């Protein structure tokens, strides 16, 4: 790929007290790709996501987003970067006192000159794009199922048509049918809206169905990146166990059957 990466991370170091989570971590994200980050519990997948999304300051290293230094920039520049990114949290993190439509309207309020009617109708479009039925817009988050809350969280994350979307465990806690539908949705949105997606997951099916590239976090850094097929040839105990386990085989068989 000739162009520069949309996100470039170099020498990242994250530390909680004496516990070092990331050290010398390098990762590139290219425009238009869906990257799945996997790793054992405690390897700092969510910490990495929060660091890139600007919710946590790393102890060392550099993060370049859209070609700008995301750590050394002013607050205004950081805000401009944030407007081009969307984050979906694990359980949606919807504002519980607002309806789903009002939740999606919150980021749209940052756009100057948008009338309430337009905002309202755009929110309806995002709700529909994320695969929610019409009536969901008037519901409060507590009245929705877990899967619908995740979709609503995604609708809010894509409200401003961001270039990069971060998804934290998009299919955790969903039943297999709901999880598969969500994988399809991520793939569809990434293709049709040209989104770059950074997703943290444990779900091998998601890695198969939705991701172009997989990044494995182990030993405090990104151990290896590559396609699903590449992962099968990696000689590392954790990677081997993860991608050669019975669940992984089932997921590979399932995708080859449907393909």
């Amino acid at each position, binding site marked *: 790929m000739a162009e520069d990466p949309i996100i470039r991370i170099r020498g990242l170091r994250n530390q909680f007290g004496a516990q070092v989570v990331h050290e010398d971590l390098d990762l590139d994200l290219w425009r238009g790709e869906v990257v799945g980050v996997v790793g054992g519990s405690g390897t700092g997948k969510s910490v990495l996501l929060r660091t890139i999304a600007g919710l946590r300051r790393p102890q060392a290293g550099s993060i370049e987003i859209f070609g700008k230094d995301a750590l050394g920039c002013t607050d205004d520049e950081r805000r401009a970067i944030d407007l081009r990114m969307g984050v979906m949290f694990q359980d949606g993190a919807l504002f519980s006192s607002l309806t789903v439509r009002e939740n999606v309207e919150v980021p*749209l309020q940052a756009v100057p000159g948008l009338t309430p009617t337009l905002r309202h109708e755009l929110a309806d479009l995002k709700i529909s794009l994320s695969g929610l039925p019409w009536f969901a817009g008037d519901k409060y988050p507590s009245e929705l199922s877990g899967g619908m809350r995740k979709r609503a969280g995604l609708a809010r994350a894509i409200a401003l048509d961001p270039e990069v979307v971060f998804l934290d465990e998009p299919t955790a806690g969903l039943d297999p049918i709901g999880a598969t539908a969500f994988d399809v949705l991520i793939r569809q949105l990434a293709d049709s809206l040209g989104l770059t997606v950074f997703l943290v997951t444990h779900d091998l099916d998601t890695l198969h169905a939705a991701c172009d590239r997989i990044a494995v976090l182990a030993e405090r850094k990104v151990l290896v990146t590559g396609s699903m097929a590449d992962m099968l040839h990696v000689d590392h105990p954790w990677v081997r166990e993860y991608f050669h386990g019975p669940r992984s085989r089932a997921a590979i068989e399932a995708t080859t059957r449907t393909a």
Partner: protein
Amino acid sequence: MAHFAFEVREAGADAPRALALRGALTVQTLTRLETLLAGQPAGTATVLDLSGVEHMDTAGAWSLVRFAGRGQGVRLQGLSPRLQSLLDAVRDAMPRPDPPAPAPYGLREFLEGTGRRVASAGQLAVELSAYLGVFLARLGRAVRHPSEFRMTSLVHHCQDVGWRAVPIVALMGFLIGVVLAFQGSVQLRQFGAEVFVVELIAISILRELGILLTAIIVAGRTASAFTAAIGSMKMREEIDAMRTLGIDPAMVLFVPRILALLITLPILALIANIAGFVGGALMAWAELGISPGMFYVRLTDQISIDHAIVGFSKAPVFAVIIGVIGCHAGMRVESNTESLGRMTSAAVVAAIFAVIAADALFSVFYARVGL
């Protein structure tokens, strides 16, 4: 960055109207785009030339799709393949509104709303008496089966509800005594009846103010604490978990709390009364020169024990009111955080209101009885 321009080419009678758009069709330029498209004459054949569009997001695509759906004569052309696929995706996802449910309006809505509010007020009264019944039933069960009763829990709540409230209640009582003595002395001095300030302080504190203000402070402190504690357990499904484990939430949660109130509220009222007398005596001494000894003698000689009986007889009623309202509001918390806050403040308002209303009924009752 978000530049946007357009050009209208009026064609001859045989060719359709052409409108060329250039630049970015994004949420940033949406308002301008919408204004432009809304200004186009309806029903005329229009060709939108989009070959100059460099950037488009879902908002721009949505606007175009809506415009295209307005009339038969609208054609979109020249969009780059990448943006065309975005446009198609948005067209497929255009929201399809459900038919709206018929909403009541006008007089009917007013009557319906009033009816609903009256019904829900009646429902609330029924529920509160049901909770009172549950509390009494479980209390009776605890007497018959003492092993089911949670003694540790009761002691814990007594400390929380009673012991921790002593400083604020004592301070409040003291200040009430000071205020009564001061105001009383100013008024009574006009008649040369300063010495009656003792009766004024004693009767008003014993009969009304001591217990009422204590109950109000406890309602603010404790009803909210009950609602918050029980409500957050309800939110995290702990109460459902108790039920599945065969534990009765009423026995575990309500009985110790309300019983703790029943025990501690009279004690708190007594503390408030004594603090009130101390405050009143000090102020009477400073303002009117009534010595504490004199104050004490008048207090014991002139004030009938009836006043204290009237005052303390209200304490258990107030305690049950506060406890039942607090527990009931806690159980009405739903699974969202907002309802927890709403029910907590509702519990405080309801408890204070109910205490004052009950006090008014007591006043009428004791006046009729002649106590």
